[in-house]
Structures are given as structure tokens and as C-alpha cells.
């Protein structure tokens, strides 16, 4: 391999810029989430550090870095300290191939989608290792949960990415975006987008799928024994991954830097458009967090294997048929909505109405305790009735 010094320096600079960009993104996300959750919950969110609390994540990061780095005496030291890196490095490496605009990308790979899938799976190893090496029961429970959850939800996310790849006829990110010039794929295969978003939530462990580090059950799961900078790395990776889901959704389903009004945008504006779309999806993820409770691990697994995976295969087959038989592309949209209606209807019929009926019954069947008149009032009423009884007699006389 002939690599000149200049190329190496170029790549190094690109990586340095990318690393800082990724960190910046994570910091803005932390602020955005805290502020948004605050507003949704009727409180102001961070306000003290910097204007609108903008510097709050930096203050948090400094605090974490200043903390003592504790590891349990019985932990496997090497694995314990390697695990955070195994989680963080893949979530950083996949950024190499994400185009933020047509020509704003570190390395546009022909197999970009494949590269993403291959590397994003790696972080599971880090989580399981973190759980195992901590030598703590909560951590090991969390590690097991992470392994089960992430491996299961990898399948629907890959299937929905595959649908997009099939429709675009390429695994190249830039070409996938350019194939959406006329119609973004969210309009063509809304079902694939919904599956992608739900499985993406599970993949990055956001509510309602934050099962493997569930604070109130396994107290942080694989992260329970981590502190200081190592915990900060997990934290950073979580937010970076969350944004990756948003960015991927923007590129694969929302048309990336394409927009419906006229010609292509200049590069800075195009990058801005991609970021706006990505942040929009991320905000949806935060919004879900403010709304939903956490699922249970068995419910999560049955939801994944009984609903998401069959549905993702269904949309995959539908897309294949559309390509093979050269149907009108809009048939896919119709098929998507029809398939989506099935679980929605079943779910509504199965759960919501009985609960509402039950609630109405509880309210209606409640035992009513009637008020007795007070002794004084009762006495007054008696004497009152005595006088009214006496009155006609008097009138008659």
C-alpha cells in the first residue's frame, strides 16, 4: 500500500475534526434532551450555566472527568477498562462513512450501509464485557439483557435498511440519498421507517426499551460499577448512537439533503438541512422518553420476535415484489399502511378498551357511603316536621 504522508495527515485532520464534531453533537444533544424534557415536564430545565443553560453539558463533563475512577476490587481490570472503548469506538467509527452533504464525508464507501451495520453491532460486545467484567450481579443481569435485546433488534433494523438498499439499488449512502430526489422513502415505505425508528430506539436503549440499564431495576446495568471518565465514555456513546439513529433516519428515509422545493442546495445549507432532519428525529426519540414507561424484558423480546421481525420481513417481501413485478411505487405505500393497520387494530381491540371499561366499572361500582344528618340538624328537622304537622290543625281550628 502506498500512502503518502500528506494523505495520512489529511486523514488525521479529518478524524480530529470528526471527533470534535461528534463530541459537539453529543453535547448539544445532552442539552437539548434536558431542556426538552424539562419543558415537557413543566419545569425550565438547566438555566444556570451559560445562556439558557447551554454550557451545562460541559460542566457535567468536567465534573465527571474530575471524579475518581473507581473499579471494584474483584473486577477483571483489563476487560473492565477496555469495555467502554469497545462501546465507544464503533459508534465513532461509523461516522466515517456518514455523508452530511453530497461531498461532505470523510470516506464515502461503496458499501457504506454494510459498513454501518457491521460496526454498530460491535458495541454489543462492549456492553456484555462491561457487565461480565464488573463482577456485580446487577451488571451481569444488565449485560445479559443487553445481549438478548440488542441481538434481537439488530434483525428488524437490518431488514428495514435492506428495504431501502433494495429500492435504491445501492449500499452507497450518497446514492441512496440521491435516489430519493423525487420521493423520500418515508412516503414509499412508511412501515420500514416505523420499524427502523422503533428498532433504533431499542438498539440505543432509549425508553421504552431502556431495559438493560433500567435505573429502577438493575440500577444502571452494565454501567453500575463505572464512575468518572469511563462512565462518561458510555454516556457519550449513548448520545452519539441516539443521534446516529436520527441521522440514519434522515439519510435513508427523509431524503437527506434533498428537498422538494426546486434545485439542490449549496453544501452548507444541505448539511444544515440534514442536521435539521436528524435533530427532528432525535427530538421524537426524546419525546417518547418523556411519555412512556419501560417495557419488561419478556415483553420486549416477544414484541421484537412476534411483531417487528415478521413485519420487517413482510415489508421486505413487498418491496421485493414491487421491484420484481414493476408495480407502481405507491402500491408499497398502500401495502405499508394496510400492514401497519393490522397490529394497531389488534392492539386496540385487545388492551385499551378492556382497561377503559374496567376503569369505568370501578368508578361506577364504588360503594357509596351516604352522609347522615348531623345530630343537631336531625333534631332541627324533627322539630320542623313536628311544627308543620301541627300547622294544619291550627289552621283548621
Amino acid at each position, binding site marked *: 500500500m502506498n500512502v503518502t504522508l500528506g494523505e495520512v495527515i489529511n486523514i488525521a485532520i479529518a478524524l480530529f475534526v470528526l471527533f470534535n464534531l461528534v463530541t459537539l453533537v453529543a453535547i448539544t444533544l445532552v442539552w437539548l434532551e434536558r431542556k426538552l424534557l424539562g419543558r*415537557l415536564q413543566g419545569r425550565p430545565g438547566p438555566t444556570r450555566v451559560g445562556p439558557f443553560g447551554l454550557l451545562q453539558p460541559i460542566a457535567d463533563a468536567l465534573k465527571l472527568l474530575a471524579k475518581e475512577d473507581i473499579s471494584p476490587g474483584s473486577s477483571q481490570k483489563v476487560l473492565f477498562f477496555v469495555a467502554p472503548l469497545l462501546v465507544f469506538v464503533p459508534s465513532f467509527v461509523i461516522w466515517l462513512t456518514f455523508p452530511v452533504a453530497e461531498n461532505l464525508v470523510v470516506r464515502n464507501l461503496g458499501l457504506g450501509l454494510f459498513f454501518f451495520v457491521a460496526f454498530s453491532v460491535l458495541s454489543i460486545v462492549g456492553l456484555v464485557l462491561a457487565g461480565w467484567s464488573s463482577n456485580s450481579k446487577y451488571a451481569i443481569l444488565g449485560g445479559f439483557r443487553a445481549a438478548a435485546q440488542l441481538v434481537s433488534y439488530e434483525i428488524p433494523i437490518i431488514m428495514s435498511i435492506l428495504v431501502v438498499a433494495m429500492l435504491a439499488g445501492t449500499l452507497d449512502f450518497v446514492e441512496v440519498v440521491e435516489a430519493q430526489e423525487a420521493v423520500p422513502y418515508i412516503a414509499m415505505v412508511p412501515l420500514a421507517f416505523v420499524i427502523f425508528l422503533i428498532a433504533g430506539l431499542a438498539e440505543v436503549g432509549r425508553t421504552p426499551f431502556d431495559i438493560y440499564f433500567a435505573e*429502577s431495576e438493575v440500577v444502571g446495568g452494565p454501567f453500575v460499577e463505572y464512575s468518572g471518565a469511563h462512565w462518561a465514555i458510555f454516556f457519550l456513546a449513548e448520545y452519539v448512537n441516539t443521534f446516529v439513529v436520527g441521522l440514519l433516519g434522515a439519510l435513508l428515509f427523509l431524503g437527506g439533503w434533498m428537498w422538494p422545493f426546486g434545485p439542490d442546495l449549496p453544501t452548507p445549507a444541505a448539511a444544515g438541512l440534514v442536521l435539521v432532519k436528524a435533530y427532528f428525529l432525535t427530538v421524537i426519540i426524546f419525546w417518547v422518553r418523556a411519555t*412512556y414507561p*419501560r417495557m*419488561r424484558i419478556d415483553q420486549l423480546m416477544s414484541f421484537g420476535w412476534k411483531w417487528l421481525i415478521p413485519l420487517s420481513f413482510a415489508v421486505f417481501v413487498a418491496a421485493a415484489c414491487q421491484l420484481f413485478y414493476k408495480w407502481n411505487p405507491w402500491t408499497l405505500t398502500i401495502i405499508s399502511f394496510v400492514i401497519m393497520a393490522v397490529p394497531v387494530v389488534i392492539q386496540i381491540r385487545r388492551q385499551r378498551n378492556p382497561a377503559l371499561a374496567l376503569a369505568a366499572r*370501578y368508578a361506577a361500582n364504588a360503594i*357509596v*357511603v351516604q352522609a*347522615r344528618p*348531623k345530630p343537631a340538624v336531625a333534631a332541627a328537622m324533627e322539630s320542623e316536621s313536628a311544627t308543620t304537622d301541627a300547622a294544619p290543625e291550627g289552621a283548621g281550628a
Partner: protein
Amino acid sequence: MTTEQQFETVDMMLNMGPQHPATHGVFRMVLTLDGERVVDVRPHIGYLHRGSERLCETESYGQVITLFDRLDYVANINNELAFVRSAERLMDIEVPERAMYIRVILAELNRIASHLLFIGTYAIDLGAMTPIMYCFRERERIQNLFEHVTGARMMHNYLRIGGVKEDVPSDFVARVRHLLSEVREGVEESDKLLTFNEVFLSRTQGVGVIDAATAISCGLTGPSLRGSGVPYDVRKDDPYEIYPYLTFKIPTGENGDCWDRYYLRVLECYESLSMIEQCLDQLEDGLIMAAGRRIARPPAGEVYVHSENPRGDIGVFLVSDGSDKPYRVKVRPPSFCNLVALRPMMKGAYVADAVAILGSLDIVLGEVDR
């Protein structure tokens, strides 16, 4: 569930608590787990034992009220009421009507505050982080009112043997009426957000089921018992204070699962709101303290008085030897007795359910350990 075991597995002991975010204080339970399934649970208590019952024997009757504040520290007025009533029964004191109305208004407000805390923390236990903010906002309003009336947000020391410490401020009725409308909105808000949430239903319905017979034999009381379909409420079955003069409903569940126990508390919030409204309508001017000596010296004897706390049936057994200090005070704390039902509820549940079940019993450790 019984699949053939291909390889030998070992049960895991998991120590949950006393330092655990979901045990509501310093409760500790040792779970025996088969994977994610709970095989057995052993509760351990005593981490918050302060010897309150013994302390009561060293304090005068007026001072004991402050100790009762600290039993169930989220329903202080209800506790004070339980003790004050036991002493009044022993001394045969006729409490003025206005004082009783004030006590009931505050006790019901405190019941709402306590239930709001339950709803919020239960949501947190199940991973929903927003309802607690709504609930705490409303609870804060109630506590502001308490501060206005009693001078303290939590440890009120407001009730007295024979009445209350002092009359309520002149704007009390108007303020409470305003508060009621605000709290009603707040309860509705968190109710809408959480109660019929798909995930919440699937996490709570059919979880921690306990039938009426087991519930009674375990000594469950309060909303936890009513969830199993037993309409037992001290306010109805052994009325005290001015509860006979109020019209109210006792919501009762059917399935005895976590959702029933949760939802009954939501319904009770609405009931308490309507009870307070009736009290405000009936509130009249009058004395707030029974005539008599300032220092209580009940005649020698013993008495058992019980009343309905937010968590269930609190009983106070008071023995007096005629001095100015109780000879013995025994509390029947609802949280402690409700904990007996933990084991039958938890067997076969998941780890995540263990949190949901413990949360649905709504224990307060100050009362469990005393």
C-alpha cells in the same frame, strides 16, 4: 413454562436494597432468581428503626404527637389523627365540631398528597419519568397550604388532644377551594398520561395478583386490599370524626393486580377532593379546642383506636398508667402489615415485576421500621 432442562442451572441470589432506587427508602429484599424469574423473596427490615414506640414512653402526650409525624412521613396529619384520637378516647374528650372538620380537611389533603407521591414514584419505578413532575407540582401546592396553616411543610405537629393547635387562617376556605381546582387538574393530567398507557397497562395488569382470601389472611388493608375486591375502609366500617356526615364512595377493584391497586389510589384522590369540598361547605365557626387541662393525664387504662391512613388501617394501642406519659404505645402500621403480602405476590414474577409489585404496595419505611 416447564421446558426440559438441557443443562444444569444455578439460582442466583440478588440482594436488592437497602441502597436501591426502587425500594422506596432502606427496604432490603433478597431475591432468589432463576434467570429473570423470582423464585423466592425474603424481606429484611429494620434499617430505619428509631425506636419510636419506646421513645413515646419517655415523652409527654403532647410531645408524642411529633413522634407520630415521623412514622409515615408522607401522611403526617393522618398519623397525628390516629394518636390524638386514641388519647381522646381514653380521656373521653368531646372534640369541638370545627376542630374535627379542620382535622378531616387536612387529613384528606394529606391523603391526596400521599397518593400523588405514590403515583409519581410508581411511574418512576416503571420507567416513566414525567408523571412524578406533575404529581410533585401538585403535592408542592398542598404542602404550601400546609405551611400556611400549620407552619410546617411536613412535620406539622398541628393536631392536639382535644382539637387543633390554632384556628386556620382567615383565607383558609378560599385558598383550599382554589387549591382543589388546581389539584384536580393536576391529578387528571397525570392520570391521562399514565393510567391507560399501553406499556403501563402491560406492565401492571395481571402482575402481582392476590385474591381476596389471601389478601385478608395476609392482613392487607387500604387500597391494596380494596384492589382485591374487599370493600373495607375504616371511614365506612368504623366511622370516626365527621366522616359519617360526608357522602363518599369507596372504589373497589376486581382483579387484585398492580393496576387495580394503582388505579384505586387515583380514584381515591378524586373522592378525597369531593370530601374536602363537602367539609368546606359544612365548616362553621366555633371552638377549636375542647375545654380542659392543658397537660393531658389520661386515667389509667388502655384503648385501641384505628383509622384509615392512605396506606391502610393504622391502629394505635395506648396504655396509660395515669401519669403524663404513655405507659405503652403500640402502633399497627399499615405498611408493615401490607409487606406480608409481598411473598405470595412475587413468586414467579420477573425481576422487573418485583419492582412493580413492591411499588404498588406503597410502603413507607418510617412506618415499617418505626
